[in-house]
């Protein structure tokens, strides 16, 4: 028998009640190997206002490029303290900030390697189904040949690449509408 997936619904304005217990702003606790990086940004609505009731979730591989998941069968090391999951609510200005390590390369379409990236889900009141997007790293030569990024219209690719604010700190924003609207994916 075949079923259809249940319909998605908005998280609404009171999402914090159910979701805050699992807030994880430091995805890689001390001792987890890899280049440490803080990523900060804002969620911005169609009026240019910060969204103060949004939450983003991050999923990523470790520094060796392996996901903590049984379907990642690569022979690469895992670390006990690293799950690869982050959850961060926005503040009154719509801003978020989290710390992690830069992931390694992971396999992509056609047996080509994907450049280091984080996958991101975006939730908020007024969004009837969450949005999926990615964060790539700046100054990463592999971005140019990333088999996934190359499928995104070239003029919009930059919305998926963080910018360097200063040493160890990157900026990446979620722009919901208009010029520089973030690329969101359908799978």
């Amino acid at each position, binding site marked *: *028998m*075949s*079923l*259809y*997936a*249940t*319909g*998605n*619904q*908005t*998280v609404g*304005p*009171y999402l914090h*009640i*159910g*979701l805050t*217990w*699992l807030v994880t702003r430091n995805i890689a606790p001390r001792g987890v190997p890899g280049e440490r990086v803080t990523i900060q940004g804002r969620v911005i*609505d*169609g*009026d240019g206002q910060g*969204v103060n009731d949004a939450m983003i979730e991050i*999923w990523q*591989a470790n520094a060796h490029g392996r*996901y*903590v*998941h049984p*379907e990642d*069968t*690569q022979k690469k090391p895992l670390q006990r303290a690293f*799950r*690869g999951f982050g959850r961060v609510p926005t503040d009154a200005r719509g801003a978020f900030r989290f710390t992690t390590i830069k992931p390694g390369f*992971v*396999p*992509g*379409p*056609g*047996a080509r390697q*994907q450049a280091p990236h984080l*996958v991101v889900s975006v939730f*908020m009141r*007024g*969004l*009837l*189904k*969450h*949005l*999926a997007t*990615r964060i790539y790293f700046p100054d990463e030569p592999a971005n140019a040949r990333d088999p*996934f990024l190359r*499928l*995104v219209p070239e003029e919009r690719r930059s919305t998926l690449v963080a910018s360097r604010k200063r040493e160890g700190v990157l900026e990446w924003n979620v722009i*919901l*509408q*208009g010029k520089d609207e*973030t690329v*969101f*994916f*359908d*799978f």
Partner: protein
Amino acid sequence: MSKLKGYRRYHPGTQPDYDYPPYRSTAKRHPTQPLVLMPQTLSEITGPLFGFDDLKPTDNDLTRQHKGEPIGERIIVSGRVLDENSRAVPNTLIEIWQANAAGRYPHQADQHKAPLDPNFSGAGRTLTDAEGRYRFVSIRPGEYPWRNHYNAWRPAHIHFSLFGQAFLTRMVTQMYFPGDPLIPYDPMYTCIADENARQRLISSFDWETTIPEQALGYRFDIVLRGRDATPMER
């Protein structure tokens, strides 16, 4: 790693559109560009997994999280989490949140003049068992007004958040109660075009889980995206 088992795409009409004018907040928060259709990679067919270490014993009983007992009609909300191939989704995290019996959330953004209940926080979580079953004990949430349109009231509902076993199976939904007269007027409910898909958001009254002298049972089964029939070359 060349063969990955991908996930089926959502069936047309069963999911809300991002731009849905009857729900006013979508106006400035929906993407105006079409979503970009992408291949599923290892990054999306994996996802965070959780375990019993993440939970406390009272997490699935919202009536036992404080010293006193909350006000309200006791309910048991239970069901199964399946995939589109009718297979159980075991060991998956479910998070819920809801208003108290008076229709009020303990949240600074909720200014509705209904009483707070010091014995009710309205949040729960659990893991499904090996057959995909879950069970929560709670109180029936109240309906409450919101300012979406004139005389707008949300039907009683419980928010559900589920992970499944992949980034692609992540889902947030809402469960409604059978017979609630507000349901047909609710933009959250009507945002789903397909009538059958809509109705599946309404739980069913369940004698089997109803506890005599104590609590009414409601059954709510949830279906997450399932695997494609054949592995695809990636």
